[in-house]
C-alpha cells in the first residue's frame, strides 16, 4: 500500500485539528455516513424513544447511552476504510462491527463496572479508567484483538499520549449531552417560534424529549470519527509509519472476507424496514389525541375506569414503596377503591415513610430522588453479569489451550513447527503480545534460546511503549536494565537479561524451567496494567452490595398513589387540552385584551412560589388570566386574600381522619369577563351551574375562604368552602383548598373523578397548562444565577479556583528560564557557514555536504518518533515542504562522499538542506536568511 494514497495525511496533529478534520471528513463523505446513519442511528433513536415512552426518561436515557456504546463501532469501521479507500460499502462496515460485538459487550460490561466503582469515589477514577479504555472500539474492530489484549493495548495506546486521550474522553462525555440540550432548545424554538407547532416538553423539565434524543444520536458519527482520528494520531506519533502496514494488513484480511458479505443483503433489507418502521412509530407517537367538546362529570368515572383498566397505573396493585406522607394521607380511600389491595396492604403496614415526598406529575424527578435504589439494583445486576463474564473469560483460554494442545499433539507433517529466526535475520514485530505468543510457540517447539530472546524483546517493547526504556539497536541489555526508569520493572528486566545473557553469550543451555520463568517475567512486564485494572474492578465488587428493602423498587410511572398521572389522563380523556406550562410562572406573557388564554394550574403542594412569581401571577390574573391554585394556602399570593377556614370536627376526631363529603357544582357557562363596557368589576358576572351537584369524598378536609367576595363551587357538609372562584381584575382565580382530588388514589375512589371534573369545569377552559415544580421560581437572570440556583455554585467556585491554580502553574512553568543548550557542534556549523566558499575553492564541497548530512541525520534521528526511519518524510512533515522535494534533497545529501569529486551542486544542496533542517527544528536560522 502506498502511503501517498492515504486519504488523510498521516502526520501528528493537535487535538483541535483532529476535531476539525473529523468534521471535514464527515462532510466530505456525507453519503456513506448518511447511509450508515440511516441503518444504525434511526433504529437507535426509535428504540430510545420507545424506551422513554414506556419507562420514562430515566429508562430512555439509559437505553440511549447503552445503545450508543455499541452503535459507534460501525462508524469507526467506516472511517478506517474511508481513510484508504475511495468507496466503502455500508454492509462492510456493519459486518466488521458486528463481528466485534460479542467482545465489545464484555468490554462494555467491564467499563460499566468501572463506572460504578468510580461512582463510589465521586467519579474521580473515571478520569483514568475512562481514558485508558477509550480506544477499545478501535482496537477491537480494527486490530481484531481479544478482550484481554484489547485492555492492555488500549491502555498502552492511551498512555502514549495521555493528555489528548483525556481530552478526547471528556469530549465524548460532554459533547452528546451538550448536543442533546442544544438540539432540545433550538428545536423547541424552531417548532414553536418558526413553525408554530407545539413543541415537546423541555428536557430541563420533562427529563428528555425526542429533540434531545435526535441531538444525541446526531453527534455520534462525528464523535466516533474524531476518536478514531485521535487513535490514528497517537499511533502515528508512537509507531511512526508502521501504522500504514498495519492498516494494509487489516485491509488485506478484510479483502479475503468479502465473500461473506452476501449474507448481509437480507440484513440490509431488514435494516431498511426497521428504519421505515421506526419513522412510522415516531409519526404515530407524535399524533395528538382527538379533542372533546367540554368537561363532563358523567363520563369521568368511565374515563378513570378506562385508564385504570389499560394497566398504566400500578399505584393500587403495586404502589411505590415506601409510601410518601402524601400517599399515606390518602390511605382512607384505599378500602373504597375496588381491587386496590396493594395500596391497602401498604397502608396497613408500619413501614415509615421516606423523608422526601416523591414527585406527583414528574416521574423523572422522582426517579432522581431514589437514585441510590437504582444504583444498588444496577450494581447487583452488574455483579452477576461480571461473575458470568469472569467464568466465560476463564473458560475461553482453557478451551483454547486444550485445542492448542490437541493441535500440538498432531503427528508430524500435519502441522510444521515454526522455524526459529537465525541470528542474521532481524524480525521486526511491533506488538509485544505477538512477541510473547511467538516466544511461547518457540518454547513449545523446543527452541528455548530464541524463545528467551522473544520474551526479552516483548518486555523491552512493553517498557519502551511506556517510556521506561528507549529501544535502540546499539544498546546492550545491561544498558536497558540500568537505564530503565521503572523501578518496579527493573528487577524483572534484570532477571530476564541474566537468563538471556547466560544462554546467548555464556554458552549454557536454556532449560524449560528458565524459559518458563522468563515467560512469566515477560508477561508480568507486558500485562501488568490490565491486571491491575481488573484487580481494581474486582476490588469494587464488595461495594456493590444489594440495596435494602426500602429502596428495592425502581420507580415507575403511575405507581405513586399521590401522583398526578391519572388526573392528567382523565382531563385528556374528557377532551381537555392538557400540557405542561413549559415556562416559568414569573415569565407568563400577559394576556392581550379579549384573548382567551389557557388556564394555568398550580399545585402549591409541589410548587413553591417566590415573591416575584406571586406578584406576576397577580398581574397576570388582572390582565385576564385564569389561575387554578390548589393546596398550601399560605403560599398563595397575598393579593388574593385566601385563608384557611377553621372547621368544626366531632370531639375526638381529627381533621385529616376523613372521610369528608364534598359537594361540587359543575359550571355550565360563565358570562364573559371582558370589560367591553368599561366596567372592570367582575363581581356581577356569575356562573351558570348544573342543577345536579357532584359529590366526592376526601380523606382530609381543609377549608378555605377568600377575603374578597368569592363564588363557592365546592363545600363540605358543614358549609365550609373547599373550592371557590375569586374574580380579580380581568380574570379570576379558582382556588382549591387541597390537591387531593388531583391524586391517583383519590380519583380512583368512585365518585371523586366526577367531583374533580366538576371542580375544574369552573375554570371555564378546556385548555389547561400544568405548572412544574420549578416553574414557581423566576428564571435566573444570569448564567451564574442559574448555576447557583441548581446548586452548582460550590462547583463553580472550585472550578474557578482550579483554573486559577492551573493558570498560575502554567505561567510559572513557562516563565521559568530554561537554559539554551549550545549545539554540540556549534563550531562546525559556524565553520561551514563561514567558509563555504573556501570549501568550494578547495574542492571540499562534497565533504562539507557529507559532514552536514551526518550531523543532520543524527539530530533528526533523535527527534523522530520511535520506530520511524524515513528521515525525508519526517523532514517534509515538520518543515511543511513537499515530500518528493525533500526526498530528492535528502538523497542527494547522503550520497555525497568526502573524497569524491564535486558535482557542482553541493553548496546549493547544503544551503537548501540547512534551510529545511532549520525549518523542521523550528529555528529561523538559515544560510539564505543571513
Amino acid at each position, binding site marked *: 500500500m502506498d502511503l501517498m494514497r492515504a486519504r488523510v495525511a498521516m502526520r501528528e496533529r493537535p487535538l483541535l485539528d483532529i476535531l476539525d478534520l473529523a468534521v471535514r471528513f464527515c462532510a466530505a463523505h456525507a453519503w456513506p455516513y448518511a447511509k450508515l446513519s440511516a441503518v444504525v442511528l434511526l433504529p437507535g433513536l426509535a428504540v430510545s424513544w420507545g424506551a422513554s415512552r414506556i419507562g420514562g426518561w430515566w429508562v430512555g436515557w439509559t437505553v440511549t447511552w447503552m445503545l450508543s456504546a455499541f452503535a459507534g463501532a460501525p462508524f469507526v469501521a467506516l472511517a478506517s476504510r474511508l481513510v484508504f479507500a475511495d468507496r466503502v460499502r455500508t454492509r462492510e462496515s456493519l459486518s466488521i462491527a458486528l463481528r466485534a460485538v460479542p467482545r465489545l459487550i464484555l468490554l462494555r460490561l467491564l467499563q460499566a463496572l468501572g463506572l460504578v466503582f468510580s461512582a463510589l469515589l465521586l467519579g474521580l477514577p473515571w478520569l483514568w479508567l475512562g481514558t485508558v479504555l477509550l480506544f477499545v472500539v478501535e482496537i477491537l474492530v480494527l486490530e481484531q484483538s481479544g478482550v484481554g489484549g484489547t485492555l492492555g493495548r488500549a491502555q498502552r495506546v492511551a498512555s502514549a499520549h495521555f493528555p489528548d486521550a483525556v481530552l478526547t474522553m471528556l469530549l465524548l462525555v460532554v459533547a452528546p449531552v451538550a448536543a442533546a440540550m442544544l438540539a432540545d432548545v433550538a428545536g423547541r424554538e424552531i417548532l414553536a417560534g418558526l413553525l408554530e407547532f407545539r413543541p415537546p416538553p423541555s428536557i430541563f423539565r420533562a427529563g428528555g424529549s425526542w429533540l434531545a434524543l435526535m441531538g444525541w444520536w446526531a453527534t455520534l458519527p462525528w464523535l466516533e470519527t474524531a476518536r478514531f482520528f485521535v487513535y490514528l494520531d497517537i499511533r502515528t506519533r508512537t509507531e511512526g509509519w508502521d501504522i500504514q502496514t498495519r492498516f494494509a494488513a487489516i485491509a488485506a484480511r478484510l479483502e479475503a472476507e468479502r465473500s461473506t458479505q452476501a449474507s448481509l443483503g437480507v440484513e440490509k433489507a431488514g435494516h431498511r424496514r426497521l428504519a421505515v418502521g421506526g419513522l412510522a412509530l415516531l409519526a404515530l407517537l407524535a399524533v395528538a389525541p382527538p379533542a372533546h367538546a367540554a368537561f363532563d362529570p358523567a363520563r369521568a368515572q368511565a374515563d378513570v375506569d378506562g385508564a385504570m383498566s389499560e394497566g398504566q397505573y400500578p399505584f393500587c396493585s403495586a404502589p411505590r414503596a415506601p409510601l410518601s406522607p402524601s400517599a399515606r394521607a390518602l390511605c382512607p380511600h384505599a378500602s373504597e377503591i375496588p381491587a386496590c389491595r396493594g395500596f391497602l396492604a401498604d397502608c396497613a403496614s408500619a413501614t415509615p415513610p421516606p423523608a422526601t415526598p416523591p414527585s406527583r406529575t414528574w416521574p423523572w424527578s422522582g426517579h432522581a430522588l431514589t437514585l441510590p435504589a437504582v444504583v444498588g439494583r444496577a450494581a447487583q445486576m452488574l455483579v452477576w453479569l461480571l461473575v458470568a463474564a469472569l467464568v466465560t473469560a476463564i473458560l475461553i483460554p482453557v478451551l483454547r489451550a486444550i485445542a492448542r494442545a490437541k493441535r500440538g499433539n498432531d503427528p508430524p507433517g500435519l502441522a510444521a513447527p515454526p522455524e526459529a529466526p537465525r541470528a542474521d535475520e532481524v524480525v521486526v514485530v511491533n506488538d509485544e503480545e505477538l512477541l510473547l505468543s511467538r516466544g511461547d510457540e518457540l518454547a513449545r517447539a523446543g527452541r528455548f*534460546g530464541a524463545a528467551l530472546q522473544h520474551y526479552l524483546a516483548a518486555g523491552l517493547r512493553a517498557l519502551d511503549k511506556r517510556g521506561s526504556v528507549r529501544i535502540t539497536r*546499539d544498546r546492550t*541489555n545491561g544498558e536497558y536494565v540500568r537505564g530503565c526508569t521503572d523501578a518496579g520493572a527493573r528487577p524483572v528486566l534484570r532477571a530476564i537479561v541474566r537468563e538471556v545473557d*547466560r544462554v546467548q553469550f555464556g554458552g549454557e543451555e536454556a532449560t524449560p524451567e528458565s524459559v518458563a520463568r522468563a515467560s512469566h517475567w515477560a508477561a508480568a512486564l507486558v500485562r501488568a496494567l490490565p491486571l491491575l485494572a481488573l484487580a481494581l474492578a474486582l476490588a469494587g465488587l464488595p461495594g456493590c452490595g444489594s440495596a435494602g428493602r426500602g429502596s428495592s423498587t425502581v420507580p415507575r410511572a403511575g405507581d405513586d398513589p399521590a401522583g398526578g398521572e391519572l388526573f392528567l389522563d382523565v382531563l385528556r380523556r374528557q377532551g381537555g387540552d392538557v400540557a405542561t406550562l413549559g415556562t416559568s410562572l414569573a415569565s407568563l406573557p400577559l394576556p392581550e385584551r379579549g384573548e382567551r388564554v389557557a388556564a394555568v394550574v398550580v399545585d402549591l403542594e409541589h410548587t413553591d412560589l417566590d415573591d416575584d412569581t406571586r406578584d406576576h401571577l397577580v398581574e397576570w390574573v388582572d390582565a385576564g388570566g385564569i389561575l387554578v391554585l390548589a393546596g398550601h394556602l399560605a403560599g398563595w399570593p397575598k393579593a388574593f386574600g385566601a385563608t384557611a377556614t377553621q372547621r368544626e370536627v366531632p370531639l375526638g376526631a381529627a381533621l385529616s381522619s376523613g372521610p369528608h363529603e364534598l359537594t361540587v357544582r359543575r359550571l355550565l357557562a360563565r358570562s364573559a369577563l371582558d370589560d367591553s363596557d368599561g366596567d372592570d368589576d367582575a363581581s356581577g358576572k356569575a356562573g351558570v351551574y348544573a342543577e345536579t351537584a357532584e359529590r366526592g369524598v376526601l380523606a382530609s378536609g381543609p377549608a378555605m375562604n377568600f377575603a374578597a367576595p368569592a363564588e363557592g363551587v365546592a363545600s363540605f357538609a358543614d358549609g365550609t368552602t373547599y373550592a371557590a372562584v375569586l374574580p380579580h381584575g380581568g380574570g379570576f382565580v379558582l382556588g382549591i383548598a387541597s390537591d387531593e382530588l388531583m391524586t391517583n388514589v383519590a380519583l380512583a375512589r368512585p365518585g371523586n373523578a366526577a367531583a374533580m371534573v366538576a371542580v375544574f369545569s369552573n375554570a371555564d377552559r378546556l385548555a389547561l397548562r400544568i405548572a412544574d415544580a420549578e416553574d414557581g421560581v423566576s428564571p435566573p437572570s444570569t448564567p451564574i444565577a442559574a448555576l447557583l440556583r441548581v446548586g452548582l455554585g460550590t462547583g463553580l467556585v472550585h472550578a474557578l479556583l482550579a483554573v486559577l491554580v492551573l493558570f498560575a502553574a502554567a505561567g510559572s512553568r513557562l516563565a521559568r528560564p530554561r537554559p539554551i543548550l549550545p549545539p554540540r*557542534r556549534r*563550531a562546525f556549523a559556524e565553520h561551514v557557514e563561514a567558509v563555504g566558499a573556501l570549501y568550494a575553492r578547495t574542492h571540499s564541497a562534497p565533504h562539507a555536504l557529507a559532514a552536514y548530512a551526518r550531523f543532520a541525520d543524527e539530530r533528526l534521528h533523535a527527534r523522530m518518533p520511535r520506530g520511524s526511519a524515513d528521515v525525508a518524510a519526517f523532514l517534509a512533515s515538520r518543515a511543511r515542504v513537499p515530500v518528493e522535494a525533500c526526498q530528492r534533497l535528502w538523497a542527494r545529501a547522503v550520497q555525497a562522499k568526502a573524497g569524491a569529486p564535486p558535482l557542482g551542486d553541493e553548496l546549493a544542496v547544503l544551503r537548501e538542506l540547512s534551510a529545511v533542517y532549520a525549518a523542521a527544528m523550528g529555528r529561523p536560522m538559515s544560510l539564505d536568511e543571513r
Partner: protein
Amino acid sequence: MDANLFQQTFDRIRREMARVVVGQQELVDGVLVATIAKGHVLVEGAPGLGKTLVARAFATVSGCAFKRIQFTPDLMPSDITGSSVYSRETGRFTFVPGPIFAQFLLADEINRAPAKTQSALLEAMQDHQVTVDGTSRPLPGPFVVAATQNPVESQGTYPLPEAQLDRFLFKLTVGDPPPELERTIVRHHADGFDPTNLSALHSATSPQELLAMQLHAQSVHVDDAVIAYIVELVRRTRDDKAIELGASPRASIALLKSAQVIAASDGRTFLTPDDVKPMVAAVLRHRVMLHPDAQLQGISADERIQDILRAVPVPRLAA
C-alpha cells in the same frame, strides 16, 4: 581462583583504593583492569589531579614494587633500563638494573623524553623483558607501566609514536573533580592527609594473586557473537570518514582482554556486549588518528567513537 574469589578481590582492591583516592574512579578502575589484563595504561591529564597518587596507592594496595621515572628531555635509555658498570674491585662489568625493574612503573610525563628514550620502554612493555648489552633480563611479574602526559604543554614535548601508543591498553583522560569531591579532597588534606605517606593503606592483594587473577580473566568464555561485535567496532574505525588511520587488530585484542576482566569482576564466566561497550573509548581513543579536516572541525576521537558505538548494532537473535 574462581569467579567469586576474583570478584571479591577486585572489590577489595577498589575499596582499599577509595580510602586515599577521592573520585577518579575511572582512573582507578582503568589501572586495575589494565593490570589484570596484562596491559599498560597511558594517563593524560593536567597536573595536580592525583595521577601519581593513584599509581603509588595502587602499588601499595597490590603489594607490587613501585618505581617512578620522571621523564625529561635529557633522559637516556640507560637511565631507564640500567647499564653495565665497571667495578674496579672485581675487574668486571656489573649490571645495575634501572628503575624499570619494578612491578609497577610510573613513567611521569613520558612525552617529555625524546623518542629514543621512549622506545626503551617498547621491549619492556611488549615482552616484559629488557635487553642490555645483548643480555635479556626478564622483568618481575606482573609488570605494568602507567605513563602520564600533560595535554597542556606542547613546547619541548615529543608526541608518542603510534607504535608505542599502540602498546598501551588504555588511554585514560583525567579531568577536574566536581566541586563536592574537590571539597572532600581539601578537607582530607586539612585533616592531615599526607599523600607522600601511604602507610595507612593496607595491602589488599599480592603480586601472586594478581597473576592468578590474570589467568582467571583469560578463561572467561567469549561467544562468537561478542567477538564479531568487537571486530565490527574496531573495523568501523578504519571505514570512518573522519578517521584517517583506524585501530589495528591489536585494539580488538585489547578490547577483548579488558572486557574479560570486566566480566570477571561482575562474577561471570562469560562475556557480554555490556562488558565490551564501556571499554571501547579507553581502548580506541589513542589508536585512531583523525583526518585533518575532522580536527579542523573540532571533532574529537571520543565523539567519533561514540558515533561508531551508536551505529553498530548489539548482537541479538530477534528484535
